[in-house]
């Protein structure tokens, strides 16, 4: 990753997370946005299509759709079509419950879409304890339909204390299904904040996962685990937080934030109902502040070049201090384990 160019500021995000709705037919324990009912005043179809147009004009390469469950929006396929007609690549994060053969056939007509189906355990009981009854079979049904299509598909697993030991089995399951595995970091936002203590992986679990991940170059993590990866994974270039530099997040009502885990008033960069996207990207004070953020307390760490202080969202949610460094980085996991051993 060429931090020099990134820190100088790109003219637009590389990709964008767009939470198109808060509506969801599930109530997962770790949901980052406490999804359930739709948000009041979600973007209309016309507003959503206007945003797609803006994304095209500013040069966004890819939009990652999430929510809520994106397919709960009846106009979601129309929004996708508008992206694909403009050459914008899309990735959809879905719980899989609304995916049927007809939908897969329609989505297969473009080569610009990829889909992640959430599955939070290789064992049915593990998954359903977090996601609810019936979710395991629904996800597998969706994954089988997608695996038989040309759509690049992955299992998306949020790493929790309950499923860390099942990650290798999830990898094998993905291989058997003909899809790939993506593991995302559990962060204390939304319902994830309410259930943080119960679901957070321990330092030893994070360390074990980090070691496993190092030998699995084909497992995707997005930018979730750049602060945890023992060595920069070759070619992925994940060594810094991309919020406001490479990416940002649009919420269901058109508010723009640095990332999906910072959808709080204090991090709001602007509203698309008041300003166009380019103006928000260029002029937002909070974006400027994050672009200039330096985690000085981490600069002497031997791993600084690999994470640059880690995830500011986790630092904010756990310590109320985005300048304090990631409280759950690999180095702190190792220190924590050593301190515990010494105390024992």
């Amino acid at each position, binding site marked *: 990753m*060429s931090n020099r160019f990134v820190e*100088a500021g790109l003219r637009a995000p590389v*990709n964008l997370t767009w939470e198109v709705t808060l509506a969801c037919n599930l109530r997962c324990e770790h949901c980052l946005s406490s999804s359930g009912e739709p948000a009041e005043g979600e973007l209309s179809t016309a507003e959503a299509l206007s945003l797609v147009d803006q994304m095209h004009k500013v*040069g966004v*390469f*890819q939009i990652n759709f999430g929510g809520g469950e994106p397919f709960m929006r009846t106009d979601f396929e129309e929004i996708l079509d508008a992206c694909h007609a403009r050459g914008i*690549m899309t990735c959809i994060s879905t719980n899989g419950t609304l995916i049927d053969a007809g939908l897969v056939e329609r989505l297969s007509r473009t080569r610009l879409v990829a889909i992640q189906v959430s599955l939070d355990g290789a064992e049915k009981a593990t998954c359903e304890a977090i996601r609810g009854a019936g979710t395991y079979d629904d996800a597998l049904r969706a994954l089988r339909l997608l695996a038989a299509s040309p759509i690049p598909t992955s299992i998306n697993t949020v790493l929790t204390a309950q499923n860390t030991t099942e990650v290798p089995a999830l990898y094998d399951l993905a291989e058997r299904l003909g899809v790939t595995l993506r593991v995302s970091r559990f962060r204390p936002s939304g319902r994830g904040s309410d259930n943080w203590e119960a679901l957070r992986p321990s330092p030893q679990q994070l360390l074990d996962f980090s070691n496993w991940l190092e030998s699995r170059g084909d497992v995707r993590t997005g930018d979730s685990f750049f602060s945890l990866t023992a060595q920069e994974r070759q070619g*992925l*270039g994940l060594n810094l937080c991309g919020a406001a530099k490479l990416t940002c997040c649009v919420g269901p009502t058109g508010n723009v934030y640095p990332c999906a885990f910072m959808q709080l008033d204090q991090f709001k960069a602007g509203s698309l109902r008041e300003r166009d996207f380019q103006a928000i990207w260029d002029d937002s004070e909070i974006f400027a502040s994050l672009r200039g953020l330096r985690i000085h307390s981490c600069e002497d760490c031997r791993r600084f070049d690999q994470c640059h202080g880690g995830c500011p969202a986790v630092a904010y949610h756990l310590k109320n201090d985005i300048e304090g460094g990631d409280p759950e980085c690999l180095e702190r996991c190792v220190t924590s384990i050593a301190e515990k051993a010494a105390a024992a």
Partner: protein
Amino acid sequence: MAAAGIKLHPACRVRQEGFGLLFYDSRGPRLLFAETGSLLPADFFGTVRRKDEFPEGLSERQKNTLRSFLAQLIEKGFLREQPIC
């Protein structure tokens, strides 16, 4: 036999930035920051090009630099070779 041309890989995108060109490969995903300044516009990659085809007005030295750059893009998978016709 048709002459060899080059084209942006369908999984890749490119756009102009202040420093030059920013390439994106959705298969990684991965990024490539090319400090090309204004030597080569992003829309150069919007169509199939001959390997020796460059914008007008470039010196031989600049063309040689670009030949090497395009070869690297092919090697890294951002561009792919295909027949012209």
